[in-house]
């Protein structure tokens, strides 16, 4: 809220050189002065009102808080009786009657009728104050309407002025809207009123949305001579719900934060007096209906409890003094402080609330010393998921990948937001791949094609029973070459291709202690139909990887031959949990290493060759490694040679040449049966 210092000075003495000090004091008391504007009218504070303190939404409320914080003298508001001199002799005329049919929604309603007003522009001093307080939002209307706004800003109590001659018999009914009822509001919009929205009505129809906005038909015009001035107390929740279904206004902002019911009278008479003084006329009638009396709340607060909560030894007299400055009536007794809560503080309901008031005003949080009464005395534990993610990220970073962290809100997904901010953030992601493609596309447009990226994070999917599940995915994208930036080395010697992607997957599985993964051809909508594989461990499918299809890489602007992987993080986590670390002792006897280079048709998968060779090599085979794949002239069309390096070792002794040759022969035989041609 904009609080002009000039206006504040009506209630407090504020020397120019204290403006900054007081802004800081108010901020540290809880009413944050976000900035001090240099307005043509003088300095203006911009305050940030917390949702629990509707009483701060006024100049007077701000002054009252500052007075309490700084122990300053506060000018009292004029009593309602100050308007008495404007009462028309006799006051007999029953110009208005008020019926509250909805006492839950409207606790109190006061109507003041002023006759003989002359409508015109508000005086310059009043306009200047409104301009200072409202800034660019200020639009001068007329003297009466401007006065109601003035009083609202001064005291926090919204008011509304009707042209009484537009209300048949001056009969006012406060009730909920009936189905289909309509109203043209002051902003010119015709609105169908949601059923039950609290309305001010004449004998048959709504003339104003209570606490939110008046109607056009009953507004003050140049012809108005008889003004009905409404001040009322409305239920915060009713106004909030009504405003959300219709529109929000300065009035609804205040009512939904609770307005002191006692202000109905104070604000009403303040506005009436101003109208009589400025627009002329006299008060000829007064109708006040109180459906619910102002609650008188009391809170018992034990000093011992207050001190315990704050962790500070606050002096009892200092505490009581601070509470009294806030308008709380403290009955001093030997036991607990019996606190009478002022009607503008509905937020004070329990002992702990009193502790807060003592803490911020009697002690001051700047004086609260750091203490640690209890230390846990041992290191905490990270969550199992966080521990797993750390291992996972480490493995991928060690493989040379750059981590990315992307938005959960995207333009496409299986779960939509009901109230998105923009279409590009309208859904929850159901895959990490589109974000990775987006990053790669942007990089590619910047001329960067050498990428090795990964992300680990949840995706969001609908589940049965209208539940939402958040599976963990581990996805990545690689393109170009890991060696592209190195001079003198041919990048194509080590491309970030399918086999690089597979290497990453294998390194990850190895780091997580997961063994026995099988790779087999797979299909995936984003991937090349013959360059994609799925990974399974036992019966669990862990994920997919492969080269992006030409269509995808073209449409996404990603480098050709880029590869992606997309793994099930939850499955990896479950498998990783089941592994235990173990080591083998170092061998004591020498190994025998032999290479074999069988030639096969390309249709024979390496996995098949490997499986066959391993099975035939016998128990002394320590390892089998692929050394080279060669295709070329001399082998024949569609054929390739696979150079295998077999390492044999006996745990308990040295292998003889005969034993090794016997095993090799068995491998040769098996590979020949598989269709291989063994060249020596």
């Amino acid at each position, binding site marked *: 809220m904009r609080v002009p210092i000039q206006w504040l000075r009506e209630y407090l003495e504020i020397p120019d050189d204290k403006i900054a000090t007081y802004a800081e004091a108010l901020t540290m008391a809880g009413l944050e002065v976000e900035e001090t504007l240099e307005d043509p009218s003088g300095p203006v504070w911009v305050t940030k009102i917390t949702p629990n303190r509707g009483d701060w939404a006024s100049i007077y409320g701000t002054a009252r808080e500052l007075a309490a914080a700084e122990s300053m003298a506060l000018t009292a508001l004029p009593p309602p009786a100050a308007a008495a001199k404007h009462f028309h002799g006799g006051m007999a005329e029953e110009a208005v009657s008020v019926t509250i049919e909805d006492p839950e929604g409207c606790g109190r309603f006061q109507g003041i009728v002023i006759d003989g007003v002359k409508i015109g522009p508000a005086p310059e001093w009043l306009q200047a104050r409104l301009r200072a307080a409202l800034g660019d939002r200020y639009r001068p209307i007329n003297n009466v309407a401007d006065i109601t706004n003035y009083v609202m800003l001064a005291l926090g109590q919204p008011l509304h002025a009707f042209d009484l001659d537009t209300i048949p018999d001056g009969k006012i009914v406060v009730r909920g809207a009936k189905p289909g009822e309509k109203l043209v509001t002051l902003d010119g919009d015709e609105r169908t009123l949601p059923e039950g929205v609290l309305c001010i009505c004449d004998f048959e129809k709504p003339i104003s949305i209570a606490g939110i906005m008046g109607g056009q038909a009953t507004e003050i015009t140049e012809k108005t001579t008889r003004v009905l001035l409404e001040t009322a107390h409305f239920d915060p929740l009713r106004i909030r719900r009504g405003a959300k279904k219709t529109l929000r206004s300065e009035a609804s902002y205040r009512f939904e934060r609770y307005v002191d019911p006692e202000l109905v009278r104070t604000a009403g008479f303040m506005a009436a007096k101003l109208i009589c003084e400025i627009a002329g006329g006299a008060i000829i009638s007064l109708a006040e209906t109180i459906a619910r009396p102002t609650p008188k709340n009391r809170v018992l607060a034990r000093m011992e409890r207050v001190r315990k909560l*704050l962790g500070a030894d606050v002096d009892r007299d200092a505490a009581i003094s601070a509470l009294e400055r806030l308008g709380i009536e403290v009955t001093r007794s030997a036991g607990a402080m019996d606190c009478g809560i002022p009607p503008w503080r509905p937020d004070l309901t329990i002992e702990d609330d009193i502790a807060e008031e003592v803490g911020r005003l009697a002690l001051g949080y700047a004086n609260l010393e750091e203490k640690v*009464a209890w230390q846990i005395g041992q290191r*905490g534990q990270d969550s199992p998921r966080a521990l797993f993610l750390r291992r996972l990220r480490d493995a991928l970073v060690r493989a040379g990948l750059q981590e990315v962290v992307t938005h959960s809100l995207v333009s496409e997904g299986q779960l939509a937001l*009901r109230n998105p*901010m923009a279409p590009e953030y309208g859904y929850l992601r159901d895959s990490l791949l589109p974000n990775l493609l987006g990053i790669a596309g942007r*990089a590619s447009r910047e001329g*960067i094609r050498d990428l090795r990226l990964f992300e680990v994070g949840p995706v969001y999917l*609908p589940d049965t029973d209208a539940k939402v599940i958040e599976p963990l995915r581990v996805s990545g994208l690689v393109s170009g070459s890991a060696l592209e930036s190195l001079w003198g*080395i041919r990048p194509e010697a080590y491309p970030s291709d399918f086999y690089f992607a597979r290497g990453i997957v294998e390194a990850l599985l190895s780091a997580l202690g997961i063994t026995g993964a099988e790779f087999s051809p797979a299909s995936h909508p984003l991937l090349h139909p013959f360059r994609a594989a799925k990974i399974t461990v036992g019966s669990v499918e862990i994920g997919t990887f492969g080269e992006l299809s030409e269509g995808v890489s073209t449409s996404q602007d990603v480098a050709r031959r880029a590869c992606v992987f997309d793994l099930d993080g939850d499955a990896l986590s479950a498998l990783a949990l089941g592994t235990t670390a173990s080591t083998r002792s170092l061998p004591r006897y020498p190994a025998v290493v032999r290479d074999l280079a069988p030639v096969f048709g390309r249709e024979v998968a390496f996995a098949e060759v490997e499986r066959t060779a391993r099975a035939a090599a016998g128990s002394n085979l320590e390892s089998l490694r692929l050394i080279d794949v060669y295709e070329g002239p001399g082998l024949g069309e569609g054929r390739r040679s696979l150079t295998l390096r077999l390492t044999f070792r006996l745990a308990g002794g040295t292998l003889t040449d005969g034993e090794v040759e016997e095993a090799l022969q068995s491998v040769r035989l098996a590979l020949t049966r598989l269709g291989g041609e063994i060249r020596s």
Partner: protein
Amino acid sequence: MTDELKAIEKEALGAIAQASGTVALAEADNAFLGRKSGKLTGLLKTLGSLAPEQRPAFGQALNEAKVRVEAALAEKKIALEATERTERERGEAIDVTLPGRLAPPGRLHPLTRTFDDVREVFLGLGFTFVDGPDVEDYTYNFDWLNYPSDHPAMDEQDTFYVEGPWESQTPGARLLRTHTTGSLQGRTFEKVLASATPNVPFRIATLGRCFRRDAMDDTHSHTFHQVDGFSVAEGISLADLKGVLGQIARGLFGPDSKVRFRPDFFPFVEPGVEVAIWWVSPATGEGRWLELGGAGLIHPNILKRAGFDTEKYTGWAFGLGTDRMPMVRYGVSNLRLFLENDVRFLGQF
């Protein structure tokens, strides 16, 4: 004979001195000390032709001459080899100013690095971490946190609701959590309720992603991250909260960091404070207050709902934004850069 010996020795030393390389030196070696035709070794054969009384003296003189020649040879060999090695190495000279060659390393995202540091500080202070979902139930996000139904406090937490068979702002509605506080406290307290003996005292924390319908600018995004911590114990106070936050501040921002409390309002704490941390820029040496989040004593309504006797037990809680930490730490002025993932940005960390 002695004269001849002297002449040959002189000749040999001269040849050694003049040898221009190891090859020439080997030739000189052979010419004078060679077993077959060496001039010096040849003199040994003449020993028999001398008178017996002359033999010992000449033999000794010959031997001494041989030792001197051998020494000269060895010395010259070392010198020549050193020269030749230097020559060879000169030819192997490389341009040491060419760039190094190492496949670029992988990196963690700057947010991850910051979050890891935060976790480390919290773990050291005895916090145990739990995880909650990003898509949360209204019950945990608001209801458990003492939000009166439809309160203006919710305007500060403008919430994304997921489309589904539920009514917004009612228990059961799925929303994107607006803070990590609800997941943490609601879900933990529900477990406390379910267990026969509440395992107090405890310190529990969570770190994760949150969402609010906030306009995007340099320091605001609809997606942000928070770390939340809370504790329930006998007799803990607002001063304890300030103490723990002070320890966290010093763990994250250095030994001179301190904490400032300012009154603030959140429905789930009473009293409630805004937390600011004094941060000194390493670049400029200037300090300023960073407003990082909210904190306070857990509202007794929540403790009661979780089954605690509020006369005996108190609790504190805080939630700190974790996106401003990497911003100040790395001097990043635009929050959006972190989730945009321009590789030219990420490559700088």
